[in-house]
């Protein structure tokens, strides 16, 4: 067996992507140097090209093909992502129970944000019961305005459709996590926010959805080695706080 036999034997596996990561890198490096393997791999790709059509086609949800065309042609950077200002304003409004439409332009929303903040500042004693939460919201808003990365994902729970927004603040290394549109968690369960890290899932804050349908949490980065690669939201039994892995239904799974 010559050293090259290994490559010759694993061409189909490379095309199928059945090689482990290390082997795949090895093979890809080899392709750059070997015309014979490059030729054979190209041939295999062509011959197996139709295999993925063994799946049953999935009808796109209404509007998706239009959205895709728009996404390509207008190259909206905002595929499920919003500019920080617009997103901050939209969620501030959502959290306060105002129905600002997220598709409004950022400047309109910025003005809206200013107005809402003024309303917060003007909150009087009649609303004393809300002052503590409003103060917390103000703090959140101030951080949101500096957010350098905003990610959102639609979420659904028992027929309710909501959204999870994450504002990453590079300066403070805090994330502001907002969930809205979902009902309070079922009895005995909680909405649990997770970090996805190089060392696995790390439990973070619970998100409590109140009567307004919005929940906010400000979370610090997990104390584990390696980068944070994403975030997830699941529904967990309220008693499972000692468990360090999600066990319940996953509502969102976002990778950055």
């Amino acid at each position: 067996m010559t050293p090259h036999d290994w490559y010759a034997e694993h061409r189909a596996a490379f095309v199928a992507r059945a090689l482990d990561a290390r082997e795949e890198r090895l093979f890809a490096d080899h392709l750059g140097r070997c015309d014979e393997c490059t030729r054979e791999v190209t041939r295999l790709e062509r011959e197996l090209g139709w295999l993925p059509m063994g799946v049953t086609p999935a009808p796109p949800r209404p509007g998706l093909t239009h959205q895709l065309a728009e996404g390509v042609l207008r190259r909206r950077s905002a595929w499920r992502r919003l500019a920080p200002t617009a997103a901050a304003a939209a969620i501030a409004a959502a959290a306060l129970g105002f129905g600002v439409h997220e598709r409004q332009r950022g400047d309109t929303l910025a003005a809206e944000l200013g107005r809402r903040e003024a309303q917060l500042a003007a909150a009087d004693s009649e609303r004393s019961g809300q002052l503590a939460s409003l103060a917390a919201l103000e703090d959140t808003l101030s951080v949101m305005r500096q957010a350098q990365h905003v990610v959102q994902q639609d979420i659904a729970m028992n027929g309710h459709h909501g959204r999870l927004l994450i504002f990453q603040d590079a300066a403070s290394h805090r994330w502001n996590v907002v969930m809205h549109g979902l009902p309070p968690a079922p009895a005995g369960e909680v909405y649990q926010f997770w970090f996805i890290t190089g060392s696995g899932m790390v439990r973070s804050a619970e998100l409590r959805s109140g009567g307004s349908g919005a929940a906010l949490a400000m979370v610090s980065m997990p104390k584990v080695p390696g980068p944070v690669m994403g975030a997830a939201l699941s529904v967990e039994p309220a008693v499972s706080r000692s468990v360090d892995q999600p066990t319940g239904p996953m509502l969102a799974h976002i990778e950055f």
Partner: protein
Amino acid sequence: MPEQPLSSRGELAAVPLGVAGQSTLRERLLARDERALVELIELATPWLLGLTQGMLHDQDEAEEVVLEVFQTVWDRVGALGEGHEGLMPWLLRVARNRAIDRLRRRSRWRRKAARAEAYGAAGGTAVPFREPDEAGHPGWHVHESVHAALAALPEEQRAVVRLSYFGGLSHSEIAEQLDLPLGTVKTRLRLALDKLRVSLAPIGDWIR
């Protein structure tokens, strides 16, 4: 496999000519005809979505991958004339590679769940995929041919193809999943792919 520059790999090739005198979709894409892109999206999306949803089990992520695929096509439209790979196989390959990349970036916990689902779907049963339910769909005849080719494989080979090609699992992950020696998995996959190459060869492109 990791994507390589389209230009160096000679992809998106020879889509057969349609009615004489009429431009093919490929030619219209080359001419940056936006309506051609819309047509391509309408034709290909159900297949790309079927693939990516089946692999990722996450509709949002599946749609993101499909968007990326069309963005890649549109960005590299200048390379459409090179090579010998059909338009549709190229789209499928890019989509599958992107979906596998995403699967492999997921945390271990998530991947284990995906593996369990992939195996559950394989289920060791005789029928690897859902039965056809949309026979009028463009490209359906290709699906039927692939279905027949897969059905002709011995069950143990089909299970390995299912986990590898549609579940994105590597040899060693399949071995772990099926509790088989690594060598057995490698052999089964190689035999299966050899047979599939022969049976899929006569399929021609259906996007003109």
